[in-house]
């Protein structure tokens, strides 16, 4: 086993040459952009009438410069025309000199890694794969890879090619016909930034990472007796690594306070890696969290950790060390690069083990960062930089990239293996880490486990709530019923003028979305009753970023930010009214609600003692089956937004072109007045959703924390 702190001089020479070639390639690309700009500038064409002969000569010369196979090659780049030309060139395999230069750089990087890992050359199957990729024989490369997997199995194949995985993918991406992966290949090869897409398909990693939404939340949780006995009572490198192993990839993190050798109280946050299994839209430490922690500067994972630290009560100004494994390393680096967090809590140490953190930067230059990676572990190279990197991205970090051919991925990614390597095989690394973490060595005086969430979790257990209308068991279950929802568009200014708080209205084509919901509920603990609600579709009241409609539609209701703020409600029974007002905080009154027809045509009528409030009637038009989504409901209580959600079961239809019309009745009910203020008298809905037979479960309202 060797730690790659002082690589063989020969490998260093090749890496240095690869870096020089990458720099020249980057220069060539910049030159290509300039030449493309000259070739496509309207000003150059615009003066042709004045000097046609000189203009034609100039145009020919510029075009030759960006297409000469003996010179810059096919080098269209930059701007819309250049980008299109570049993609077309890639599909036709017309290469630029910049790309040829960068592939030479990548081949040199692979050659450098091969010096440290001779099996990459001596193994005939690996050598065949390597040669096929370098010689642009795509089908041969695929065949070689298939042979490798067939003969060695997937795990051993991945382990074998892990040290050159990034270079291998980048090389292939630069040379294949797929224009979508060229940018990420360039990012890997030039070391400019984290790989932004899958180097094979070109599918954007950021698009995947952007699915990871939520403000982050943390709840104290007790360790089970077996865990508690194994969690360290003393602060030391080995104890911290053991703690991470004990807590495991379970979506939890540990915060501890130690009394250092100088008697000073310090805090250590220990964060395991990705929770095993499919993305669960609950834990920020799932697969999506691993993506977003690597690619984004702030993600639910790091925001949940910040909330755990705040809840723990780490006093501002006291030293904090952050230790993370795998995705946990990315998450703690995100904390270290968060100016607001670091202004409260000085992060003195970050230790990331097996984590892709090459493109993270701590806020404070005084933060000591250690990155420990095994060259056969694929995870640290997910940001595009692995064992073959020729860029010294962090001369001020303590970077250990060691190799051990005996290791097989994914086993070598486990915290057990890293701990064993550090403790047993890399004594100088262990000594350095222990020396740096000496201020955190001492007795643990406090310890708290946290479970991390994407969003504030709702109540998962049933509870009984007392209202003026009697007691009710929550979540409220409705065994059968039907529902009609009509969406209208309205002037956002008119929505903003409505009294009360309703959050940030979502706009579609510059218009706000207003919803009319009518539910008929049978077989509920409240008896049979109907309800109608006027609402506005709003973004997450705590969302720090502008809502993206497509992204918000994906998670289940419990984890989605996009919802409907109920402005006025009508309930058909006193008991249901009491629950709506007191449990969910709705501005509600008692009246009559009727949904007639059930199919098409259909009508919705709401009335009170004063007369008809509204009538929505007409044909529903064509229908399509609709993917079932929960409804997120917001309300405000004492200025604090509250969220609940309604889970529904049963077939649902969407009617994209309803022929219905809304008529406001003669009642002076606020719902009628507000519909009038929104200019919806006589309006046609833009969309209707119908659930002819449904059951539902409505969660209690959860106050959202101040943001």
């Amino acid at each position, binding site marked *: 086993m060797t730690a790659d702190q002082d690589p063989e001089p020969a490998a260093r020479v090749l890496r240095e*040459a690869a870096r*020089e070639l990458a720099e020249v390639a980057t220069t060539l690309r910049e*030159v290509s952009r300039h*030449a493309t700009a000259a070739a496509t500038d309207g000003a*150059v064409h*615009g003066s042709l009438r004045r000097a046609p002969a000189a203009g034609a000569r*100039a145009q020919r*010369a510029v075009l030759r410069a960006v297409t000469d196979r003996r010179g810059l090659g096919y080098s269209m780049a930059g701007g819309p025309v250049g980008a299109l030309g570049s993609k077309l060139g890639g599909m036709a395999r017309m290469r630029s000199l910049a790309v040829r230069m960068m592939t*030479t750089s990548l081949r040199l990087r692979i050659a450098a890694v091969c010096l440290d890992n001779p099996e990459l050359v001596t193994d005939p199957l690996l050598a065949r794969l390597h040669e096929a990729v370098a010689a642009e024989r795509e089908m041969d490369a695929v065949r070689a890879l298939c042979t490798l997997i067939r003969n060695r199995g997937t795990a051993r194949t991945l382990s074998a090619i892990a040290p050159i995985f990034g270079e291998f993918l980048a090389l292939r991406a630069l040379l294949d016909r797929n224009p979508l992966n060229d940018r990420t290949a360039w990012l890997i090869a030039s070391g400019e930034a984290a790989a932004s897409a899958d180097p094979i398909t070109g599918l954007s990693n950021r698009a995947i990472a952007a699915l990871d939404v939520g403000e982050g939340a943390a709840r104290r949780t007790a360790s089970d007796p077996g865990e508690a006995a194994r969690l360290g009572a003393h602060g030391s490198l080995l104890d911290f690594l053991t703690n991470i192993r004990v807590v495991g990839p379970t979506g939890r993190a540990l915060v501890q306070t130690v009394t250092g050798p100088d008697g000073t109280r310090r805090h250590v946050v220990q964060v395991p890696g990705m929770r095993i299994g499919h993305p669960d839209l609950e834990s920020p430490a799932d697969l999506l969290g691993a993506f977003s922690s690597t690619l984004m500067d702030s993600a639910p994972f790091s925001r949940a950790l910040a909330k755990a630290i705040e809840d723990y009560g780490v006093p501002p100004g006291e030293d904090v060390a952050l230790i993370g494994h795998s995705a946990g390393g990315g998450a703690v680096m995100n904390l270290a690069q968060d100016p607001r967090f670091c202004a409260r809590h000085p992060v003195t140490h970050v230790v990331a083990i097996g984590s892709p953190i090459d493109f993270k930067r701590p806020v404070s230059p005084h933060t000591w960062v250690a990155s420990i990676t095994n060259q056969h572990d694929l995870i640290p190279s997910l940001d595009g930089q692995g064992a073959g990197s020729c860029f010294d991205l962090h001369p001020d970090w303590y970077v250990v990239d060691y190799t051990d051919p005996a290791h097989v991925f994914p086993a070598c990614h486990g915290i057990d293996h890293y701990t064993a390597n550090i403790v047993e095989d890399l004594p100088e690394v262990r000594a350095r880490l222990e020396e740096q973490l000496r201020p955190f060595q001492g007795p643990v005086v406090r310890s708290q486990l946290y479970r991390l969430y994407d969003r504030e979790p709702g109540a998962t257990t049933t509870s009984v709530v007392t209202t003026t209308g009697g007691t009710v068991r929550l979540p409220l279950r409705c065994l059968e019923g039907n529902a009609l929802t009509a969406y209208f568009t309205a002037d956002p200014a008119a929505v903003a003028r409505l009294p009360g708080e309703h959050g940030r209205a979502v706009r579609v084509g510059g218009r706000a979305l207003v919803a009319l919901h009518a539910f008929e509920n049978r077989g509920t603990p409240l008896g049979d009753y109907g309800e109608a609600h006027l609402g506005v579709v709003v973004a997450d009241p705590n969302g720090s970023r502008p809502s993206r409609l497509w992204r918000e539609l994906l998670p289940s209701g419990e984890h989605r930010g996009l919802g409907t703020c109920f402005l006025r409600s009508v309930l058909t029974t006193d008991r249901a009214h009491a629950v709506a007002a007191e449990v969910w905080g709705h501005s509600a009154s008692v009246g009559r609600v009727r949904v007639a027809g059930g199919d098409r045509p259909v009508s919705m009528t709401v009335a009170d003692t004063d007369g008809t409030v509204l009538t929505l009637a007409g044909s529903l038009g064509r229908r399509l089956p609709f993917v079932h989504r929960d409804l997120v409901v917001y309300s405000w209580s004492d200025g604090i937004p509250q969220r609940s959600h309604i889970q529904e079961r049963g077939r649902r239809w969407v009617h994209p072109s309803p022929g219905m019309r809304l008529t406001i009745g003669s009642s002076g009910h606020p719902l009628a007045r507000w519909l009038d203020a929104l200019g919806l008298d006589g309006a046609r809905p833009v969309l209707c959703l119908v659930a002819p037979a449904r059951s539902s479960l409505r969660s209690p309202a959860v106050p959202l924390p101040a943001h």
Partner: protein
Amino acid sequence: MPGRTDAITAHARVLGADAEVLAECAARLRRLAVRLRAHDAAPPWLYRTLNDHVTACVVASADLADASGRLDEYAGTAIHDGTTQ
């Protein structure tokens, strides 16, 4: 049309400077090739590949210098014709 001719002149200036940058790149690659030629660790294909890159940089430099000169000439002619018309 002074705006257009100014833009053409600006392109000419940038491409002229880029021609010099590429000449420097060629010199840098030549030095790199000399350095690596004597090194045992250099792969057998490297020296020839680097020489190809050097040649391409020289050709590209010449192409850009030519394009720069032609654009300059074009801008000058357009200005002249514009003022005499």
